[in-house]
C-alpha cells in the first residue's frame, strides 16, 4: 500500500451527498455510500455520519465532464471517479456519465468505486497489489466484497486498529510532534541505560508495545520512559533468543523477526514460530548478514534493512524480493546517518532512527529528518528512557 502523506486528525467524520446521480434512487445511493464508508470503519475506530446540510468533512457529488476542479470527467469508461486526499479536503466526485449500478454485473458498481474513492478521502494512495481495493483499476462487479489485508494495513497505519473501548470524545489524540507528553520522568530502577543509552534494537510488538534490546536485557517502554520492573533478560522474555541482537521488526503478519550475525529467528508473540535460527541468506535472499537495523516503513509497508552506509528494500511479495537497484545509499534518507543502531516505525506514525546515544525523527512525507525544537538528533536517554538529569537536547548549552 501507499500513503499520500495526510490524514484526518479526528476519527468521527461527517459526509453528505450534495449532488445525486441521475439514474439511481436517492435512498439506494445513501445505502451504498453508507456501506462504502463502513468498509473503512470495520477495522478502525473511524465513524462516518451522514448529514444533509451544513459543513461536512467529505462532500460527495455525481457530476459530468468539467465540474469545477479542473479535472474533467471523460464520459463512459476511462476515468470513473476521483477523490481528494485529506489535506485537499477529502471530497469525492463520481462521473455521472457512468452507468452506476447496485448489486448488478451490468454497468459500474457504485459500492466498489465509492469504497475505493473514500480510501483516497482518508489518505490512501493507489496500491500496486492487484488484490487491494486501492489498486487503481476497476475489476468488474464482485458479488462478495472482502477488504484486502493490504488495505487493512494501510488504513490502520493511519488511524490505528479498532478498539472496543468507548471513545471519550470526537477528538483524535493528535500525534504529538514531540515524542512523549513530558511529565516528570520516572527513573528506571536499573538506570544503566541512562549511563549508556546506545541500544541494539527497538521494535513494536504486534500488540503495539515498544521494546528496546540492549545486550542480554530488554526494556518495555511506556510513552515517556521505561516500565517498572525492567530491564529483564531476553532469554526470559523470548525463550530461545540470544542477546546482542542486531535488528528486529514486526511484520504485518503479526510475527516478529530478530536478526543476529548470519541468522534470524521468527517469533509469534513470545513463542518461537518454528525451528530457528535460520540463515538470513535463505529466508531473506538479497539481504546481507551482520545488519545494523531493520524496520517496516509506514510509507509503503515494505521492509527496509540498513547496514553501514547502505539500505535494502525487501518486498516478500515480489520475485526477487530485493530489486537489482539495491543497495542504495542511506543518504537518500535525508539527514539520517550511516552505521545506525536501530530503526523503528513508532506507534505515533513517525519513523525513528537511533545511533549511539541519539535519535532522529524522520518525516515520511517530506523524506527528511524532521525540523523541530529541540533539533534532531536528540538524546535517547531523556526522550525514550525518561532518564533524570540527562540533557533534553544535543545542542551545546541547551539543556
Amino acid at each position, binding site marked *: 500500500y501507499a500513503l499520500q502523506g495526510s490524514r484526518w486528525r479526528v476519527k468521527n467524520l461527517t459526509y453528505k451527498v450534495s449532488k445525486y446521480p441521475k439514474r439511481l434512487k436517492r435512498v439506494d445511493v445513501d445505502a451504498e455510500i453508507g456501506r462504502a464508508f463502513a468498509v473503512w470503519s470495520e477495522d478502525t475506530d473511524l465513524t462516518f455520519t451522514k448529514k444533509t446540510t451544513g459543513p461536512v468533512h467529505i462532500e460527495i457529488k455525481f457530476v459530468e465532464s468539467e465540474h469545477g476542479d479542473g479535472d474533467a470527467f471523460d464520459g463512459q*469508461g476511462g476515468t470513473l471517479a476521483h477523490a481528494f486526499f485529506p489535506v485537499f479536503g477529502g471530497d469525492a466526485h463520481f462521473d455521472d456519465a457512468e452507468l452506476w449500478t447496485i448489486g448488478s454485473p451490468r454497468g459500474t458498481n457504485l459500492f466498489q468505486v465509492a469504497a475505493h474513492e473514500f480510501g483516497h478521502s482518508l489518505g490512501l494512495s493507489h496500491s500496486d497489489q492487484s488484490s487491494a481495493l486501492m489498486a487503481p483499476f476497476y475489476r468488474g462487479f464482485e458479488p462478495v466484497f472482502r477488504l484486502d489485508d493490504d488495505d487493512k494495513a494501510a488504513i490502520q497505519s493511519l488511524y490505528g486498529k479498532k478498539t472496543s473501548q468507548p471513545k471519550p470524545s470526537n477528538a483524535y489524540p493528535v500525534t504529538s510532534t514531540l515524542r512523549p507528553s513530558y511529565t516528570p520522568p520516572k527513573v528506571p530502577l536499573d538506570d544503566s541505560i541512562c549511563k549508556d543509552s546506545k541500544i541494539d534494537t527497538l521494535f513494536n510488538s504486534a500488540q503495539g508495545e515498544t521494546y528496546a534490546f540492549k545486550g542480554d536485557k530488554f526494556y518495555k517502554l511506556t510513552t515517556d520512559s521505561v516500565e517498572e520492573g525492567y530491564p529483564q533478560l531476553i532469554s526470559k522474555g523470548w525463550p530461545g533468543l540470544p542477546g546482542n541482537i542486531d535488528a528486529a521488526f514486526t511484520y504485518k503478519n503479526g510475527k516478529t523477526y530478530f536478526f543476529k550475525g548470519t541468522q534470524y529467528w521468527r517469533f509469534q508473540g513470545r513463542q518461537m514460530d518454528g525451528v530457528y535460527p535460520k540463515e538470513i541468506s535463505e529466508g531473506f535472499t538479497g539481504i546481507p548478514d551482520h545488519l545494523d537495523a531493520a524496520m517496516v516503513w509506514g510509507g509503503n509497508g515494505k521492509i527496509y534493512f540498513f547496514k553501514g552506509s547502505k539500505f535494502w528494500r525487501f518486498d516478500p511479495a515480489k520475485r526477487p524480493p530485493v530489486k537489482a537497484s539495491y543497495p542504495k545509499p542511506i543518504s537518500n534518507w535525508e539527514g539520517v546517518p550511516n552505521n545506525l543502531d536501530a530503526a523503528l516505525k513508532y506507534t505515533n506514525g513517525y519513523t525513528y532512527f537511533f545511533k549511539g546515544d541519539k535519535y532522529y525523527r524522520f518525516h515520511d512525507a517530506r523524506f527528511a529528518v524532521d525540523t523541530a525544537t529541540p533539533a534532531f538528533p536528540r538524546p535517547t536517554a531523556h526522550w525514550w528512557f525518561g532518564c533524570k538529569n540527562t540533557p533534553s537536547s544535543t545542542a551545546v548549552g541547551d539543556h
Partner: protein
Amino acid sequence: AVQAAPVSTTTQAEMYLSQFGYLPASARNPANSGLQDKSTWLNAIQEFQNFAGLNITGELDDETLKLMSLPRCGVRDRVGTGDSRSKR
C-alpha cells in the same frame, strides 16, 4: 453519452502516463507534441508496467495498452510526481 476512447496510440499513452503521474509534464514538448527525452519515456512505461504487475518490456505492447484502456480511478498512481519528483 460520450465514450472514453481506449488507449491505442502513442499520443494517448503519453497523455495517460502524464495524467497518472508517470511522466512529468515537462517531458512533453508542446512545439511538436513529441517527447524530448527517450529515457524518460522508457522509464515512464516501465514504471507503469511495474506498478500494474505487467511484464516490464518498456514498450507499448498490447498488454500494456489493454490495461491503460481499463476503466479506473482518476487519482494519480504516483502522488507527488509532477515536475518536481521527490528525492527517493
